[in-house]
């Protein structure tokens, strides 16, 4: 049954900082405040009109502080106002988005900040004298400490097992030349995103093929998302208020027409209530709920900004969300669905692989890009997606619609 919120909610302002592998010159508090400042400027909004906020912070270890949200409130201009913190693994951003939506849709607040920030690469491994192993180690603390962590489960394993088990079932899908072509397109698209982390890089299918395996035979180095430091702030406003703000700012409201979430169980098995191999059911269920709430289907969507932690997972997620059949995800290229071969824009920001992945706010970054494309290109519907946690357990999706001033 289609569930309709009490009132409509729109994104009326957005700002994202440039994505960098490391922001040596900025702390996480400065990044978040910069994003808030930019979003206020974008919406032409006085800070005292903002009644509350929600902040997505992926984990305390990256933040080097337990209960890190406590020190953000003052920076956000929200002193003496509510600022709950959301943390849901890689899907922290989309879940933060959902909480901010509920705060406005429920009628409790008219204007709310939806903020995500991340600073991950202060982590440093003094054994290898590099950052990445320690960043990966931090994410690996998310595995079950009794039965799995000691066995060497890594951050990449979250998706590797999903991808490999999908390949068990569909050995003729996820072909390397198709993956290489999608990566080439994503890399090319990142050049049009002023905030993309890897906008200067040139990636060809040959370079993908020759890059080393990260987890074999699931994915290679050029197929993995980057670690990013950055922040994003979206401004949500209720109908009645949103139109007034957008009129002043001179940009159309972007209505949040649909939202859906689903979490799969942690433990894998051969039947429910366990997570099943070869599937990301959370993505399927989240997208289905979002479509139903919006009253549309995948055929109505022009822009998808999805959480591509790893390229083969992008393809599986596109299948789970109904754009191609499961087992035929390569149709994205082979049947000319994905632009520029086809009409569907997928990750015009460059996605998390080439645009950037500051975990607490990556999905806000995706929403920022989706809004930008809807407005710039005059398109109607976009789908924003987030996934995360061990074995890609968490899924979230939002349908955005361009309004009129």
């Amino acid at each position, binding site marked *: 049954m289609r569930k309709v919120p009490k009132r409509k909610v729109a994104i009326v302002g957005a700002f994202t900082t440039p994505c960098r592998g490391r922001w040596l010159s900025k702390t996480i508090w400065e990044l978040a405040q910069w994003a808030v400042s930019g979003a206020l400027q974008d919406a032409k909004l006085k800070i005292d009109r903002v009644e509350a906020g929600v902040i997505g912070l992926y984990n305390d270890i990256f933040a080097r502080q337990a209960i890190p949200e406590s020190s953000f409130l003052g920076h956000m201009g929200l002193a003496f106002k509510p600022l709950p913190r959301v943390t849901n693994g890689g899907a922290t951003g989309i879940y933060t988005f959902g909480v901010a939506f509920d705060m406005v849709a429920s009628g409790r607040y008219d204007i709310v900040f939806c903020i995500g920030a991340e600073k991950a690469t202060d982590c440093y491994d003094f054994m290898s004298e590099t950052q990445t192993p320690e960043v990966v180690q931090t994410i690996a603390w998310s595995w*079950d400490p009794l039965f*799995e962590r000691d066995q060497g489960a*890594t951050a990449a394993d979250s998706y590797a097992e999903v991808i490999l088990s999908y390949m068990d079932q569909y050995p003729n899908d996820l072909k390397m030349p198709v993956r290489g072509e999608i990566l080439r397109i994503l890399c090319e698209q990142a050049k049009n995103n002023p905030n993309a982390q890897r906008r200067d890089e040139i990636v060809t299918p040959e370079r993908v093929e020759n890059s080393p395996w990260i987890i074999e035979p699931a994915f290679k180095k050029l197929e993995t998302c980057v670690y990013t430091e950055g922040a994003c702030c979206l401004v949500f406003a209720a109908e009645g208020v949103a139109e007034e703000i957008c009129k002043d700012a001179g940009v159309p409201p972007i209505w949040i027409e649909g939202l859906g979430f689903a979490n799969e169980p942690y433990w894998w098995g051969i039947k429910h209530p366990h997570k099943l191999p070869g599937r990301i059911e959370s993505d399927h269920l989240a997208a289905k709920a979002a479509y139903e709430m919006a009253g549309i289907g995948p055929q109505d969507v022009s822009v998808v900004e999805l959480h591509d932690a790893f390229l083969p997972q992008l393809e599986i997620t596109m299948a789970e969300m109904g754009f191609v059949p499961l087992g035929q995800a390569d149709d994205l290229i082979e049947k000319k669905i994905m632009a520029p071969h086809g009409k569907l824009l997928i990750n015009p920001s460059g996605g998390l692989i080439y645009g950037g992945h500051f975990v607490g706010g990556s999905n806000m970054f995706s929403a920022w890009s989706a809004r930008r494309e809807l407005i710039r290109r005059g398109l109607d519907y976009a789908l924003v997606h987030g996934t995360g946690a061990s074995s890609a357990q968490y899924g979230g999706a939002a349908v955005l619609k361009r309004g009129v001033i």
Partner: protein
Amino acid sequence: MEKVMRRAGEYVIPREAVPEVMSRITVSSEDKFVCLERTEPMFTTYWASAGEVSPFFLAVMKEKKIIGARCPKCKMVICPPYMMRCPVCQNDDYSLVDLEIGVEMPQVGYMLGTPPITVFANARFAKYAPFGRGRVILGESQSALPIQVFTTTGFLKPGIFKQGTKVKIIFRKFRMGFSTDYFAVPLDEVPEKLRDKNGLEETALKWKSLEISEPQITDAYKKQFPKMVQAVSKFVAAISRSPRAQRDLANWTRKIQVRTGGGKFGMILDKQRIKVVKEKVPRPDLVLVVEDPAHLGGWTNGDSLVNLIRTGGAGINNLQDMETIFKFDRLHRSIRRDAEEGKLGKKGKGE
């Protein structure tokens, strides 16, 4: 309380992972902003209780058994017994039905899916890479037991374990109550007479160690060799012009002996540079064997040494030093990206 078991000299935080108290002044290359960096910790140590799942680990440690749990109502079996109640079935008073704990599971099962082989591991496990871990279904269990997977044949290559591969549970000789006390090997690598035996310890199997052999010398390889050494020299000389490549090698020193089918040479990695030396390297930290010199030429053009090692085209004498190979694999891309962004310095002599 029974006696404390310990691995003498092994620490939960490896000593070499713990930095001294330090600070440094760093200039952000993008912003030219002068920053202060300090070493900081954020850690907690535990005597972590396995609580209600302790019987699983005690059965492994003391009896070399794997136990599961069964719902008396719906008959669902789970292994490991990660919860004590059935999440589906309820009693008349609406409470969740208690599972029967202690169901002994068979020690031969099958892989739920193809297990990933980790090449680039996190800091704690880098020295074990490449290694495999996956999930095995034992008996009637509906859930899968997370497990490390090993082969007795040496290097863990793709294809040894697949979805459905029959595996045997093997127990470590010294067990302390961790999920590494047991692991899986392909059943067909276990001698037939041992396949039905429960509680099989690692020492009952014959393990092939990873050995690197001397490369076969051929005239064709000898002919290629000088050109290849020249290509490697030219490639590593570019490191001095690439800020990214220099960062890749920061704080890392190695003396590497390279043996090919056309001859030997050395690479001395120090002060963010690599120097190629023609003579034999005394007491090398690492030996890299690449039979076909052309493969090294491929590396200078962006091919991966990790891929070469994994496919058997190359070998190293110390798998625990894969980190050096990871660093070598980063160099081509770093130099290329600096070149594409116009950040590569001017060419020096010999380039």
